[in-house]
């Protein structure tokens, strides 16, 4: 292990390596999102899926801890010259970790007996699931490439989707249907909305680690965790 000191680096600096690991964290988050949503929407075996989701979430949490440690080492050794980027990465990995937590919440819904596999609006729900999953994939690509234009475009789509999901939540609040039908769906929309908000946060942080000087938060950009 001490020999690491004498080995030549692979040309990538440590922050680039950390960024690369955040990409695999997002891929893990997408994997657990797909599984957790499948448990609810396809009627798949919740127990088997639950194991996989928990293991993936553990992997995400371990990566978060590990990367946070590496970022502290980076600042201790290199000083504060790239502190903005370090702070951005700390925020980024926290947001990815939150997506993992929301995926687990979706799984808990299924474990508590919620089953939407025969819901009349199943096609629409599957559509949302597919869109969010694709957004996670795009977020990983944007982080890897540092694609600012892609981030702007994805952020716009996440904003639109959040509005759409909120409309569904509002609609369900005033629904005449019985609670056991309305509540799981409303909660699912709420979790999805949080995941989408975190995707927006991830791509924003990845391409603009710290908000520009003079930035005044008027509340419109608040990110729902």
């Amino acid at each position: 292990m001490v020999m690491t000191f004498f080995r030549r680096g692979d040309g990538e600096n440590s922050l680039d390596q950390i960024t690369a690991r955040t990409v695999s964290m997002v891929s893990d988050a997408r994997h657990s999102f797909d599984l957790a949503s499948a448990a609810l929407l396809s009627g798949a075996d919740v127990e088997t899926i639950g194991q996989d989701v928990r293991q993936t979430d553990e992997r995400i949490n371990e990566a978060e801890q590990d990367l946070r440690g590496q970022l502290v080492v980076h600042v201790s050794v290199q000083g504060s010259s790239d502190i903005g980027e370090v702070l951005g990465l700390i925020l980024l990995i926290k947001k990815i970790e939150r997506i993992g937590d929301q995926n687990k919440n979706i799984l808990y819904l299924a474990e508590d007996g919620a089953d939407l596999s025969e819901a009349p609006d199943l096609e629409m729900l599957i559509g949302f699931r597919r869109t969010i999953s694709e957004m996670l994939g795009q977020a990983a690509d944007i982080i890897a490439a540092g694609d600012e234009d892609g981030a702007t475009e994805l952020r716009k789509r996440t904003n639109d989707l959040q509005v759409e999901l909120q409309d569904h939540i509002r609609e369900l609040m005033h629904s005449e249907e019985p609670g056991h039908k309305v509540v799981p769906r409303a909660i699912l929309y709420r979790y999805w909305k949080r995941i989408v908000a975190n995707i927006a946060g991830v791509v924003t942080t990845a391409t603009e680690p710290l908000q520009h000087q003079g930035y005044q938060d008027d509340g419109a950009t608040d990110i729902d965790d």
Partner: protein
Amino acid sequence: MTGTTTAADRGLPTWARSVLVFALIYIFLVGVSSLESGIKVMGADTQANLFESVNNPIAGLFVGILGTVLVQSSSASTSVVVGLVASGALGVDAAVPMIMGANIGTTVTNTLVSLGSIRQSDEFKRAFAAATVHDFFNLLAVTILLPIELLTGALSSIATSITEALGGSAGSEWKSPIKKWVKEPVGWLKDGLGELGLEENFLGTSMVLVGLVIVLAALTFITKNMKKLVADRVERSLNAVLGSGGGTVAMVLGLVITVAVQSSSITTSIMVPLAAAGVVTLRNIFPVTLGANVGTTITALLAALASGSVDALTIALVHTTFNVIGIALLYPMPRIRMIPLRAAERMADLAVERHTMAVAYVITLFIVIPLIGVAIFR
């Protein structure tokens, strides 16, 4: 977040910085040699008066602490001691306590760094313990090894044996190739100062002062540039070792980093924020600190190469021997190993309860006691 540059990428290219470091090491060696020559130029009476006060080993110990606290670098203070021994003005026996004092004095830097987190109790507790474990280990090592050295001369005997095995005998000179390279610039300096009309004690004092400035400045720049050169390697190896490495591996890493950056203060100060953030535990940091203790002795050994004096090499080896034996005595047995760790934890508890305790600790250990000690024992 791609396309960033590392700290090492900024400024000079690596090859240029490497050349600069070699040049600075050469300048450092010229500084040590100038110091040695300056003392030699002074009259015998002046030399005797100058170092009379450190003939008492306790005074020597406190002078070592004070000198190191003043320049914030044991590498610098031990190099100066090596230069003084090389000149013949200071004997190996009188220099040993000064070297031990330098070991204690150098711990002030990371203790000061730990005070930076004084406002956050939990962080401060971890940071202060991580810093003071170095103090307590060195204090304990000196408490055990100084009396043994004074009674038996064990450390200097071991160092002398190593020197003799390398081909030198006490009081003689050995053919150091580096001495030849640094002789000429020191001659120019002496001639230049001589042309200004300086003679004997004035000339000697001036050469000593110039030598001191060169040693301090060169070491500062060597450390800065080496840190930039190896920062990525340090980061990579810390990530590899701190996650899964054992005590010995961490110790070797502390040694390697310190040899590379020529400063134990850099190594130990890097560890303080890591401890504060809870990334590493006190027990993980302890061996790194001990490795740094040994690694920092490389500078005095380097300085001894510039002198060609066997005694200078011996005192430099005493520094290494002292730290290696200190580790051999205090680290392997878990019960003994716990003493500095528990002392550091207890001190951190007190410091968190009363922040003034932390400040009082630093001032008392590194300034007040050494000053009183020098005043009483000189």
